């Protein structure tokens, strides 16, 4: 039985620019938006688009991700035929390799893809916050009779040099690809989401693998090779909300944008396009008398006795009396003790912020970078952590 299209989700990246947040987990497993992890977005998009077979390519720190995905049931991806599969590199009869590049990761799983005999394969990346209907993308791909399509976003021209750019003609046919060029000829940035005809993809993967000089990367090798051969390549325009959350600043910003769905465009209150996640199983959150909660997202298990303004709180966060949380992303299980101030920062899971400690922007300052506290860290009483700080270990006293 053949599947029309299956998805391959690249989730092996370390996400090194998230520093302390990705020390023990892969970037796609980073918590986001109060009760999600980043990977919930592509997975939910798949299910909502009618894709029921997803291979997740993991390599870096896969434990958290593996456990989180489990049998795929929260995303309705526990299927008899298909469903979600975590695909780490594995030992083969001759030669075993880590995934050398994005293309090589897919190459090593050709046999997985062939089990489903698909006509099309969509390549997704596990580090983007985006609600996208892949079935509409596939419709475009078929209408253009394309062999390869890439989802693109229009970006401001001044930012274009930071992206991989697709130069396309009036019919959206791609004529040139520029990787982070100094002089951009286009402002259509690749979102790193591709649809391939499977026969074409397989052919180019095998060819790429045979080339010892290749970096085995989609952007650097596969796409240029397709262009070289004048393949039918098209750019699919996507206009919705899209955010690459590869840095602390962009991750913080994307979280803050949830608080303003009317303007930012990321609406999680969408009955027609739900984002699924594994549930915490905690009781409803509790806001005590005397607490102040303004412009915030709060989820199950939280106990709020202090002040929470313009912040995102994940499951089971405790904000004690007199504590102030402002412009902050506070991940699951973290306790903010009385009198502490947590501002303009990302605090990872199961952190303890001691009494009267200050994390992030100091009260008198403004316009600072985002401070980050890694998972499980203990910040002692009265400790001061300045803006832009990256805290990986317990801090017992003083300032950082």
């Amino acid at each position, binding site marked *: 039985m053949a599947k029309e299209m299956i998805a391959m989700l690249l989730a092996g990246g370390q996400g090194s620019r998230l520093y302390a947040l990705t020390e023990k987990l892969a970037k796609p497993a980073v918590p986001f*938006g*109060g*009760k999600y992890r980043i990977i919930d977005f592509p997975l939910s998009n798949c299910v909502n688009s009618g894709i029921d077979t997803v291979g997740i390519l993991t390599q870096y720190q896969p434990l958290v991700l593996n456990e989180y995905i489990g049998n795929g*049931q*929260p995303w309705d991806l526990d299927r008899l035929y298909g469903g979600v599969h975590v695909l780490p590199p594995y030992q083969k009869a001759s030669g075993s390799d880590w995934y050398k590049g994005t293309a090589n990761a897919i190459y090593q799983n050709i046999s997985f893809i062939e089990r489903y005999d698909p006509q099309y394969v969509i390549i997704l990346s596990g580090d983007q916050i985006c609600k996208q209907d892949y079935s509409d993308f596939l419709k475009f791909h078929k209408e253009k009779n394309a062999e390869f399509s890439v989802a693109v976003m229009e970006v401001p021209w001044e930012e274009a040099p930071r992206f991989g750019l697709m130069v396309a003609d009036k019919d959206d046919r791609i004529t040139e690809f520029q990787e982070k060029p100094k002089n951009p000829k286009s402002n259509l940035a690749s979102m790193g989401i591709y649809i391939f005809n499977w026969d074409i993809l397989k052919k180019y993967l095998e060819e790429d693998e045979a080339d010892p000089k290749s970096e085995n990367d989609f952007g650097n090798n596969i796409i240029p090779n397709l262009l070289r051969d004048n393949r039918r390549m098209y750019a699919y325009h996507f206009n919705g909300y899209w955010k690459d959350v590869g840095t602390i600043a962009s991750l913080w910003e994307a979280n803050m944008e949830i*608080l303003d769905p009317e303007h930012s465009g990321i609406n*999680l*209150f969408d009955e027609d396009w*739900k*984002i*699924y*996640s594994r*549930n915490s*199983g*905690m*009781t*409803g*959150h*509790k*806001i*005590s*008398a*005397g*607490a102040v*909660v*303004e*412009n*915030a*997202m*709060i*989820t*199950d298990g939280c*106990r709020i006795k202090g002040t929470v303004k313009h912040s*995102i*709180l994940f499951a089971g966060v405790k904000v004690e009396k007199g504590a102030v949380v402002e412009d902050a992303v506070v991940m699951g299980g973290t306790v903010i003790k009385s009198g502490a101030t947590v501002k303009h920062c990302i605090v990872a899971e199961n952190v303890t912020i001691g009494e009267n400690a200050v994390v992030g922007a100091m009260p008198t300052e403004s316009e600072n970078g985002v401070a980050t506290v890694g998972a499980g860290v203990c910040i002692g009483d009265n400790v001061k952590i300045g803006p832009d700080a990256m805290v990986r270990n317990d801090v017992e006293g003083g300032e950082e």
Partner: protein
Amino acid sequence: MMNANTSALGIVFPNSYDALVPDLVNVRLMASIPFASRYRLIDFILSSMSRCDIDNISVMVNNNYHSLMDHLGSGREWDLVRKNGGLHIFPPFVEKSAKPYTGRVGALANILDFLRDEKEKYVVITDTNIVANIDFNDMIKFHIESGADVTIAYNEQELPESLVKNQSNDLGYYYTFGLEKGRIRKIYVNAKDTGIQNFSMNMFVVEREMLIDLINTAFVRGQEYFERDVLLPQLNKLNVQAYKYEGYIARICDMKSYFDENMKLLDDYNLDALFSGGPVYTKIRDDNPTRYIEGAKIQNAMVADGCVIEGEVENSILFRGVRVAKGAKVKNCILMQDSVVEAGANAEYLVMDKNVTITAGKDIKGAPTYPVYIGKHKTV
């Protein structure tokens, strides 16, 4: 399967005491009454059982059970999708000779064949109108060590007013015990005594083989109620032990107690006591976190996911997907799933069932002694 000498299967009666809360069970049954912002009453029993490795559970539905079937699904949320055991739902078995049952005897008589085929040594039997965090393993241990034929859980409390005041028996039976060194010597039916009583929780542990014998005999004699007709006359013959439950307990006996027991959870001490035993599982709705918009004022409230709060909320329990619009005031209310309080409306001492809407500017008030109930899907 765990240790065969202590393994137990569970039997749950979701319709028991429906008559005490006629409004709330109009479109459902006791077991599926929403409680504590995101649960249904049966979640507490199923989660307690699941935590005690009781993973062969039969739910004896009698009527109005659509909402419960929808809630339970395959039983996955409670980890009850099992090749051996798992969740069984037994609707009344209708055949020419059978008449609808009223008590536990008739219901259990219907599933005797099932009971004979199972492997577990013990049976745990319970209703769903009690919210508690029961350690059934401890109760089974007590049962074994005391050498009991039947063990019944009870707690010490005064009888609820609604039960004492009611003079007829048409709301069902409740039981209090006279104890002698832990052994039940007297069972009082629908007592009207004041002061602290040994108040039965109607939770039983009994050996499966013995249960089959007792039910067989009772059914042939046309008896209906297990406590009243089977145990009460045989208290000298059977060793019926009382297991004292000292943990947190909430009994739903009428609308007032439903309201009060929800509100009690606004006290952290009570909330922690009820949930200290471990997670309580429920059906997942995949709501997003609750959003508090600028200008929202919230004091002393328990709120589930999926709500959008723009107005004022005080001393209230909000279930999943509730909307409180700008300028609306909600005070001392229970708002069930997806209910809406529109702009400028005022709600006080209300129990709003699912999907109720209070339209803009309306002013609806109940009283502390008499919370006003608004039925499912109604618009005020």
